[in-house]
């Protein structure tokens, strides 16, 4: 296994290297320089390992924080106004007073920032002082230091279960094979073990130069190149900071990146900022407010209204134009509140609280994984209530991503594994768990009989494997079965016979395809075998469960003649490695498919015992342990869609390449017929293809297994290429892939597997609810169309009576496709009458990746979008991650709709980022999707409550609060504006400045925030029961252009009333300014609060406390203020007013008149034409039983309506897959447009197999 680069410089372009020199780094060891001054250190330019994520220092906190805060436009506006107030000619308030609001806001934000920063500082400190071992030349051993002392160029030793302090180039491990296992849970959440290897060819005396890339964020990408020997190293030689070393006593590494340059730190970028739709809307409305403000200020500057009596402080009267100019700015200061700056702060508070409620929802908590929903984007909660399109991944999102081996086809023969299916079915049925337990033969038997079983009787016993065993009376807990369910496979009888047959005739063993098939399953993967699993807290070890299966095991062998004969698939333990018991092994796979295959192989006796970088040990059914030398592993990538392992057969010494991959990827690469078989390869391929199609239709995931035997010379030449590619710095990935493609040709098909991925719980229910909520659900999957269609039926995305348009084309033909789309669109144009829609079947579109690529090209886009818009559901199959995001982007941009993408794997990341709301499912495939998502949930079903309930609530709450906020500020500020008409537009305020500031800051700030946080228009049960209610939030929802203006008009009306009724009541009297302002201000408070109480839908204790508290606060503060502040304008005003009965009379009538229109409007609307939301509220008030009854009735009525719909207009066309049991001939297509393009219309009566 040589990785040393040949010293010839031939393929290495010198110039290219020069160019890239700047992107590279040369690192040398620190050891020779130990103890020297700092400036002599060779690596002094690289940052140390101490990290500092805190932004501020103690001394500079205030200036830095202020600087940070003034980046926000809103704060600048505030400060600008405050400064303007210091200009004597324009000031409206006492300058100091005007500083209060901005100071309060800045202080609050600064306190929040300081607290956050302090937490960061503490966590940094804790991390920096974690201990680690660094090699010291003086002491000649590793000495204990802190993380912060680690520098680039140091040698660091990490022992088992310790966290890696910096990015290390692995040089030595305690493992003889030079392997180090790490767990990257801290980095990406994946808990499976990963292998890292020692840089090959580096001895203990390491003194070369490490050339590496500049630090970058790519977690799976690292290039390194010690110059002298030219040894290539990649990510597999790097221990990343934050990972935990497992299963390895110790490992020694050379520090390549430290501190902030480590990959982990570079990848760590806090929560994402997204701008929600409402916020964009809001900003437009704020602009309207600015225009309104400027208009009002311009009105104020109209010259010549009153003769100005009071000269300026310099004793002169200004010229009218100049004083108008000054007045403009004074008015801006006076009416500044019209622009609701505090709205931004309030929205932030409300969103924080909304997120608090979402994360604390017990329904969105998953017991199994102990995970709450994570809200990673903090400011798009309300977008959840406006979703119109959902794009979902299939695997792991709709399905469990817990793979179960269901069927396989070997050499063109199908093995249905019926027993397995039965066992699965029974096991998933909870009721039967306690009575009937099917155990797997090997396990049950091992404790009793394994010792005396041998080669001779196994042949017979094979026959009975997988037979059902009844264990009467032993009531086991479900727990014992929950874990093995996925891992255990009951072998197929027929297949077992085949294997044993092949094995017995050991002459043909090496060419027997059956053995090869299972060997491929066992070898061709990257599964890590871990023996001692108990130090990790993962599920119950299977060996423990054996003890539960106690003697009373009856065998109901179907063969009959052997009766209760002992049987075991297991070989005696006495073979070569007694320490390794097959049942002790645990497989850690990166993908669940791989694990399923390895477990399947295990069930047939091909037990993967161990894997090192250089070898794989497999125990054959015969009990023989074969140690294959692994020459190379061509890892999986999404371009090739396959992976291969090149091994050297220990017996035949052949170079064998085992490949497994997507069926279409493998089928293309099949080569010349496989000599010596009873059927020729072509037939096998055709048969297998048929099986594959059938599997796909059953909803199984298909994989093809192939093999290739290489000659020695072939291998030599290839491996030379391979090593050149591995050591290359430029284009390394491309070169490596090229070499992989180069060898993966002329494969021989061994067979195919069908793996079942069960639907997650409640998926059909969730999808139905989402669709009733008016959300279009699209599935974008990499699977085959047949699989996708099947899953589509299973999760009720497609209904039986749907008209399914199946678009796929084999070559790049534009014209027919576009014609087809036109004709399909014609389908709709025929029935433009919307009333007819009910009578036409729902139309669903199934489209594959290649066709999709064409339809997404610019000229066909429009038509595709048009077509898709009419479809009830769309399934895109075989799409690449990039296509996924392209689809999302196009729909989002063309239709101007809110999109949501949900996925669980790395291939969904693009889509998640492209959508308005990205949701990651933290499942089996690591955390990459979660990292990039805005919300991370653990089950698909959580989407229902998240959208229908929280989305609706967040959306309506925030929308109502924003509208209310605009109203509140306008209504309040307009009072001042109206007063300007009576004070000669001199910007006098009739309310004391302090009280005016308190009014916004204290008296009326809490109620709208509370409204935005707690108001609940409809109960969660109702929202879940009647998903249609979600539609109210879609589109522009409750926060519309019109609602904004209606509320602004209402604000104008109310402010007019609030000003002019007191004006008329006090006109001509001896009322002084501030005595006049007191009732006006009080009325304003009552109107604003009562307006809110009209809007509040549900009054809880909190509502009452805050509303009444606000009123109380107003009176207490105002009374206290006007009693204490003798030199203030407002001295004793409220007191003198409160003893005057007129005050109360004016307050009452004004409030009534101000609110009468809104109140009446609400009443009339609710009585005459109640909105769906109002009706739902009516229902909500019924007692739960009646309500549930009602919902049920309503649903059944609607459901019936759906069934009645007939599919009359389906064009007569051959149907695909009318029968499931028989293998259908290759799909007859209704060829609408040409040879290469098929457009299949699947009509009703598609019998879908029953799932679970």
């Amino acid at each position, binding site marked *: 296994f040589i990785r040393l680069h040949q010293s010839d410089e031939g393929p290495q372009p010198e110039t290219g290297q020069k160019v890239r020199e700047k992107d590279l780094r040369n690192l040398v060891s620190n050891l020779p320089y130990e103890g020297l001054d700092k400036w002599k250190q060779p690596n002094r330019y690289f940052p140390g390992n101490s990290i500092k994520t805190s932004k501020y220092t103690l001394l500079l906190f205030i200036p830095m924080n202020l600087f940070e805060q003034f980046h926000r436009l809103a704060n600048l506006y505030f400060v600008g106004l405050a400064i303007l107030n210091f200009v004597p000619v324009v000031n409206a308030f006492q300058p100091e007073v005007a500083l209060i609001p901005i100071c309060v806001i800045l202080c609050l934000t600064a306190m929040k920032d300081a607290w956050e920063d302090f*937490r960061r500082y503490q966590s940094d400190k804790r991390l920096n002082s974690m201990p680690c071992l660094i090699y010291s030349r003086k002491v000649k051993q590793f000495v204990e230091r802190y993380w912060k002392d680690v520098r680039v160029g140091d040698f660091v030793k990490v022992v088992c279960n310790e966290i890696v302090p910096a990015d290390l180039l692995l040089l030595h491990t305690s493992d003889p094979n030079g392997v180090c296992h790490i767990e990257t849970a801290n980095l990406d959440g994946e808990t499976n073990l990963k292998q890292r290897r020692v840089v090959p060819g580096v001895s203990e005396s390491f003194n070369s130069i490490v050339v590496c890339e500049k630090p970058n964020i790519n977690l799976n990408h690292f290039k390194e190149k010690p110059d002298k020997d030219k040894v290539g190293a990649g990510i597999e030689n790097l221990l990343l900071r934050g990972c935990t070393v497992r299963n390895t006593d110790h490992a020694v590494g050379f520090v390549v990146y430290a501190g902030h340059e480590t990959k982990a730190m570079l990848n760590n970028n806090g929560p994402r900022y997204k701008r929600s739709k409402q916020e964009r809307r809001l900003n437009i409305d704020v602009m309207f407010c600015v225009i309104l403000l400027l208009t009002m200020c311009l009105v104020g500057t109209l010259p010549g209204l009153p003769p100005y009596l009071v000269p300026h402080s310099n004793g002169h009267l200004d010229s009218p134009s100049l004083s108008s100019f000054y007045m403009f700015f004074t008015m801006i200061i006076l009416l500044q509140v019209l622009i609701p700056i505090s709205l931004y702060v309030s929205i932030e508070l409300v969103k924080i609280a909304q997120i608090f409620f979402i994360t604390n929802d017990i329904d969105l908590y998953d017991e199994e994984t102990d995970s709450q929903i994570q809200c990673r984007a903090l400011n798009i909660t309300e977008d959840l209530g406006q979703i119109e399109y959902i794009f979902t991944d299939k695997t792991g999102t709709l399905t469990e991503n817990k793979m179960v081996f269901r069927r396989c086809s070997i050499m063109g023969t199908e093995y249905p594994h019926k027993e397995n299916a039965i066992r699965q079915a029974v096991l998933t049925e909870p009721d039967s768990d306690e009575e009937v337990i099917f155990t797997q033969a090997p396990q049950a038997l091992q404790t009793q009989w394994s010792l005396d079983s041998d080669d001779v009787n196994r042949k017979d016993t094979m026959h009975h494997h997988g037979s059902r065993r009844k264990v009467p009376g032993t009531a086991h807990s479900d727990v014992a079965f929950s874990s093995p369910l996925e891992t255990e496979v009951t072998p197929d009888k027929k297949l077992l016979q085949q294997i044993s047959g092949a094995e017995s005739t050991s002459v043909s063993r090496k060419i027997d395809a059956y053995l090869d098939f299972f060997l491929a399953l066992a070898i061709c993967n990257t599964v890590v075998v871990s023996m001692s699993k108990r130090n990790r807290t993962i599920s119950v070890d299977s060996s423990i469960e054996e003890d539960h299966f106690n003697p009373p095991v009856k065998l109901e062998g179907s063969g009959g003649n052997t009766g209760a004969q002992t049987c075991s698939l297991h070989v005696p333990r006495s073979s070569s490695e007694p320490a390794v018991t097959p049942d002790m092994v645990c497989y850690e796979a990166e993908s669940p498919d791989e694990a399923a295959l390895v477990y399947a192989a295990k069930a047939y006796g091909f037990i993967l015992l161990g894997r090192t970088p250089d070898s794989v040990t497999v125990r054959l059914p015969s009990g023989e342990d074969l140690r294959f030398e692994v020459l190379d592993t061509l890892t999986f990538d999404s371009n090739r869609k396959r992976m291969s392992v090149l091994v050297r057969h220990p017996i035949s010494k052949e170079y064998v390449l085992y490949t497994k991959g997507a069926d279409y990827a493998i089928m293309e690469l099949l080569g010349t017929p496989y000599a010596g078989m009873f059927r020729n390869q072509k037939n096998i391929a055709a048969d297998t293809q048929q099986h594959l199609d059938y599997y796909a239709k059953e909803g199984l995931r298909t994989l093809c297994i192939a093999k290739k035997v290489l000659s020695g010379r072939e291998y030599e030449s290839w491996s030379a290429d391979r090593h050149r590619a591995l050591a290359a710095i430029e284009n390394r990935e491309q070169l490596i892939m090229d070499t992989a493609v180069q060898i993966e040709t002329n494969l021989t098909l061994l067979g195919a597997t069908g793996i079942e991925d069960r639907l997650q719980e409640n998926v059909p229910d969730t999808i139905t609810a989402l669709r009733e909520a008016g959300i279009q659900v699209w599935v974008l999957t990499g699977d085959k169309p047949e699989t996708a269609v099947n899953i589509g039926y299973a999760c009720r995305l497609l209904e039986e009576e749907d008209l399914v348009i199946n678009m796929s084309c084999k070559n790049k033909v534009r014209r027919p496709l576009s014609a087809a789309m036109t004709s399909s669109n014609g389908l709709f144009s025929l029935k433009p009458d919307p009333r007819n829609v009910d009578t036409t079947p729902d139309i669903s579109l199934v489209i594959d990746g290649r066709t999709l690529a064409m339809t997404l090209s610019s000229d066909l886009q429009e038509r595709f979008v048009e077509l898709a818009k009419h479809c009830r559901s769309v399934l895109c199959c075989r799409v690449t991650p990039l296509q996924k995001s392209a689809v999302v982007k196009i729909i989002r941009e063309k239709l101007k709709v809110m999109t949501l993408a949900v996925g669980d794997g790395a291939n969904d990341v693009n889509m998640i980022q492209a959508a308005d709301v990205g949701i990651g499912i933290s499942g089996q495939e690591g955390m990459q999707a979660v990292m990039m998502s805005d919300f991370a949930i653990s089950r698909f079903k959580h989407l229902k409550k998240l959208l229908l309930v929280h989305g609706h609530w967040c959306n309506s709450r925030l929308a109502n609060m924003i509208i209310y906020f605009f109203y509140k500020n306008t209504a309040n500020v307009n009072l001042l504006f109206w007063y300007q008409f009576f004070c000669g537009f001199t910007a006098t305020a*009739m309310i004391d400045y302090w009280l005016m500031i308190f009014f916004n800051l204290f008296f009326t700030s809490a109620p709208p925030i509370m409204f935005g946080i707690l108001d609940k228009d409809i109960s969660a049960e109702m929202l879940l029961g009647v998903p249609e209610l979600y539609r109210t939030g879609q589109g522009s929802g409750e926060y519309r252009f019109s609602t904004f203006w209606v509320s602004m008009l209402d604000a104008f009306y109310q402010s007019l009333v609030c000003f002019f009724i007191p004006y008329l*009541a006090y006109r001509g009297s001896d009322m002084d300014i501030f005595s006049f302002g007191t009732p006006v201000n009080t009325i304003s408070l009552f109107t604003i609060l009562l307006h809110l109480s009209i809007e509040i839908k549900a009054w809880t204790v909190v509502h009452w406390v805050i509303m009444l508290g606000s009123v109380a606060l107003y009176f207490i503060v105002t009374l206290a203020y006007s009693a204490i502040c003798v030199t203030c304008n407002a001295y004793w005003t409220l007191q*003198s007013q409160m003893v005057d009965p007129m005050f109360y009379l004016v307050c009452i009538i004004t409030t009534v*008149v101000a609110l009468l229109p809104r109140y009446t409007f609400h009443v009339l609307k609710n009585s005459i034409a109640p909105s769906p939301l109002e009706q739902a509220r009516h229902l909500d008030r019924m007692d739960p039983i009646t309500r549930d009854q009602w919902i049920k009735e309503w649903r059944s009525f609607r459901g019936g309506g759906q069934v009645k719909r007939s599919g009359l207009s389906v064009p007569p066309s051959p149907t695909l897959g009318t029968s499931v049991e028989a293998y259908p001939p290759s799909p007859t297509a209704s060829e609408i447009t040409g040879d290469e393009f098929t457009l299949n219309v699947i009509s009703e009566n598609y019998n879908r197999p029953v799932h679970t």
Partner: protein
Amino acid sequence: MIAAMMASSYNAKEEDGHHSGSSSHGGAGAVKSKKPDNTAFKQQRLPAWQPILTAGTVLPAFFVIGLIFIPIGIGLYVTSNNIKEFEVDYTGVDINSPCYSCAKNFSWNSTQSCVCSVNFTLEQPFESNVFMYYGLSNFYQNHRRYVKSRDDSQLNGDLSALMNPSKECEPYRTNDGLPIAPCGAIANSLFNDTLDLYYVDSNSTKTPIPLAKKGIAWWTDKHVKFRNPSGNTNLTVTFQGTTKPVNWRKPVYELDPSEADNNGFINEDFIVWMRTAALPTFRKLYRIIQKKSGTTPTLPSGRYILDITYNYPVLSFDGRKRMILSTISWMGGKNPFLGIAYITVGSICFFLGVVLLIIHHKYDTRNNSADIPN
């Protein structure tokens, strides 16, 4: 409460950060279940009252408002109508007006005060206490710079403010290097007409009507807000080193020669003036005519003469000056507006109540078997 919520939700956020963060602490403390508390508050299941505004539910409210407002309105209207008010404009714009010449020949410098007399007749006797106001029109006492042009601490008797008035008083802060007491535009423009009222009986003899000048200002103003520096003893000494406002004839400590403790900043006429009016047309209480004992009306019907010492110019800003006599009820001066408003609103509510009753009968029954359209 909000703060608490912020804090706890912040925790959740931080945990995320650490989860994603590289450098975490090896999953310490991961044992604790993350299961959210099943409390009514966290699960948003707090018991709530859910009012729904429909015709049926709000009907009573409308009727009740109507039934309450209409009597109140009638009461107010009647009360307002019972208030007797008499107003006489003595600005002297009209050439026939007795004060025409005084208004015409006004100059701030003249030492000779101009006196004019206005005759008027009260048709009805004023029974209870009569309040005598002076009214000014088109006088923007609420002009911003005017409103600000005062020093409240000076008026509160602060000695340092007395000698060094606030900048707000500019340009009426100092005169000839001496601080003005009281400073500012409001004080400077103090209303200084003197009004005297005479009853002319059938014999054409003028009987002066006693006008009380005490109790016209707010008690709190007189006793708390306005105070002379260093008490009320020897105001001449106290105000030494200050000068009178430019437009004033007399210094502040000689405002009321007849009564010693009505001088300085606590002069009630001055205090009343300093409460700047809310609207450009306003009245200010000038004197009170106390009701005599017995059944004799305070002001019997008949002829009266108002003697005006015409000092205050208003023609420059197109203003008007009035003298108002008014009796007073619990609702203040005469103002029929509120009564009418109550009656109107009450009627509207009653009408709406009827409309809603009809609507309720027509529509609300349907809501019981509500169905939700798609």
